[in-house]
């Protein structure tokens, strides 16, 4: 895929190959200052996690986690996987809006959202490997005769894998633009719609599938949280979880990667955020309505006046209803800052909901409750830091937040307010940054 596929003339293929290698090596090097506050914090975190994981793989899961026979799934599943994947839901929602409904307004944020989604799956779903007791058998459901087709986890595992490929395809034009592969960029671009449709189907199924994992935990999850409708609740909440993440992440990227952001993106930012706030408010209202139906259907009104009931009300009122109202307020008054606060609250609500189902309301009456060790938290932080590292590396090199190179824009009908940014092998950008 490297030298041979370069769209250059065949005579100078060796020279091109050398140039390409030099380009890759140059791009691999860090750009900018090494001693930033984020690096100063994240490098020790990742280094410590590496030591902890070495202990974990030599001495067993019990050596660094508080997992027990009562609580087989802890923070690494409940937060990293179940919550992380809900946060990554923005990718399928936005690709639906932009590629299926053709709402061009959201085009500037599609790429960064897909990248975030892809990295979230790679890192958070990848964190699943850390939690597997016998990870060397992870290939069993993929090859051989070990297909547990009656298992929800089988479905989720396959969908994770396929969805990562779909998201990679969706993102791949950005890689081709970075490398200057014009012809390949054209081919990859033509695959986008197919990847998007496939990705949306997979997302519907595995977002709900993560909830379906807990269907057989009937009798272990507190009745206020257990319902046969968990899959639908997980699916609907992944919509506003994902979009809230897009709003939250966008407000950070806007500051951190200000120099990278395209002019178009900058101008439209507030408009986009308020549009997303509208969708969030709508889906949260639907979610609240579903929650009410499930609550009435479950006939557990008497449990509301117990400690777990108060906890349930805090989640529903404080972290779904309140942000829902805030989103409506943000849309009405046009205040982006209110939408950001609402996004943060609704993200906390999702963390609360997913941890409730997977840990807090799970065996709520057990004699010994699961509380993660500091080491489990540490490894989770390291996973997040590692993801941010890769995100930063890509955003600083590929046209993610910034405009595509001129040779792409010239061909496409996309409106463009900015001038030519030639990025053949990223040379211009390198000069600019130096």
């Amino acid at each position, binding site marked *: 895929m490297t030298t041979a596929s370069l769209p250059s003339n065949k005579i100078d293929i060796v020279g091109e190959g050398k140039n390409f290698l030099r380009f890759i090596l140059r791009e691999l090097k860090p750009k900018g200052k090494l001693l930033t506050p984020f690096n100063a914090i994240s490098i020790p975190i990742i280094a410590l996690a590496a030591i902890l994981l070495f202990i974990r793989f030599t001495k067993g899961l019990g050596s660094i986690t508080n997992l027990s026979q009562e609580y087989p799934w802890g923070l690494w599943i409940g937060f990293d996987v179940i919550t992380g994947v809900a946060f990554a839901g923005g990718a399928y929602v936005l690709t639906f809006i932009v*590629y299926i409904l053709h709402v061009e307004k959201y085009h500037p944020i*599609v790429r960064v959202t897909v990248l975030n989604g892809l990295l979230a799956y790679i890192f958070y779903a990848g964190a699943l490997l850390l939690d597997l007791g016998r990870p060397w058998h992870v290939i069993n459901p993929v090859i051989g005769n070990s297909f*547990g087709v*009656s298992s929800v986890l089988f479905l989720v595992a396959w969908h994770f894998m396929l969805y990562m490929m779909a998201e990679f395809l969706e993102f791949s034009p950005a890689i081709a633009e970075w490398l200057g592969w014009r012809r390949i960029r054209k081919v990859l671009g033509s695959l*986008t719609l197919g990847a998007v*449709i496939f990705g949306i189907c997979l997302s519907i199924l595995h977002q709900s*599938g993560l909830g379906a994992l807990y269907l057989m935990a009937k009798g272990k999850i507190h009745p206020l949280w257990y319902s046969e409708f968990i899959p639908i609740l997980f699916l609907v909440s992944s919509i506003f979880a994902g979009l809230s993440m897009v709003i939250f992440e966008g407000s950070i990227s806007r500051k951190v990667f200000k120099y990278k952001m395209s002019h178009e993106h900058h101008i439209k930012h507030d408009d986009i955020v308020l549009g997303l706030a509208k969708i969030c408010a709508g889906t949260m209202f639907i979610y609240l309505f579903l929650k009410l139906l499930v609550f009435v259907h479950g006939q557990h009104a008497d449990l509301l006046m117990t400690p777990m009931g108060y906890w349930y009300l805090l989640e529903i009122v404080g972290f779904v209803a309140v942000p829902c109202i805030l989103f409506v307020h943000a849309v009405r008054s046009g205040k982006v800052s209110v939408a950001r606060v609402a996004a943060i609250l609704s993200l906390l609500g999702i963390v609360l909901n997913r941890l409730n189902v997977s840990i807090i309301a799970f065996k709520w009456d057990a004699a010994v409750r699961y509380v993660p060790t500091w080491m489990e938290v540490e490894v989770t932080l390291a996973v997040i830091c590692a993801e941010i590292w890769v995100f930063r590396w890509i955003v600083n090199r590929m046209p993610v937040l910034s405009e595509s190179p001129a040779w792409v824009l010239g061909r496409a009908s996309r409106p463009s307010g900015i001038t030519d940014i030639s990025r053949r092998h990223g040379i211009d950008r390198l000069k600019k940054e130096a």
Partner: protein
Amino acid sequence: MGASSEEKQRPRHADPPKSTLDRRSFIGALGLAGIGVATRATSAAAQTPGVAEVGVLVDTTKCAGCRMCEVACAQANGLPMPDHSPEALAQERTMSETQRTVVNRYETDKGTVSVKKQCMHCVQPACASACLTRAMLKTHEGPVVWRGNKCMGCRFCMVSCPFNVPKFEYHSANPKIEKCTLCWERLNEGQEPACVANCPMKALTFGKRTDLLREARKRIVENPDRYIDHIYGEQEVGGTSWMYLSAVPFEQLRFRTDLGTEAYPTLTKNFLYAVPVVLTLVPGFLLAVSNATKRGDESSEGET
């Protein structure tokens, strides 16, 4: 004892007992047994589950609480001897990664009752339907067994099991799932499970599940004062291979009586049925919407 006592000597009815069975052919036999086995909720229902399967009937009114079964189980499975010190016995003990069965004493309306607990070997097991590698396998003969060459250690079986049976070795770099296998290897050698063979009170009866049910009903009918009219495991979670008779309501013996009679795999059935529906209907719908909303000036090429 009637029909079931005949079964005692010949636990396997379909095949003659195999006396020599090395590990490889054992795993091979498991593989064969796996073909068409009822891991899927639908196929399980079609096979009228529970008919050909073996199981054990526990008469809690006969159990003296001697814990010989615990010792026999540990010996048969190469596990450490159970801790029978007074401190250990002071509280309710649970199965663990080093102990596949436990006997606890419970204070009930009719005095102290001892109860042995272990994997119930459900007719339609949640663990087997949860297993994405088919490591947890419901054999034709009834026992639910675990296969280390398949398992990836995800512990979804532990999340799903209504009885909290599978246990995981958290302090091993090569961890196993530990649970009662109904002495599957001994069954293949034509022997009874170790606990049944070593019960001095004859509180445990091994046999075909249907025969055991008949025997249990007979005992209830003949001794209405001795037993309550409930066989735990006949209906619970769709039926289990281990079944219990008791003099007192099962709540008093710390059995879960709120699990319902529906087999656990049916809880996920509707969701799994939705998968092919979504995968076939949604793509066409999305493609149609995409075409319908496309602006005239757009090129047919996708673009990110």
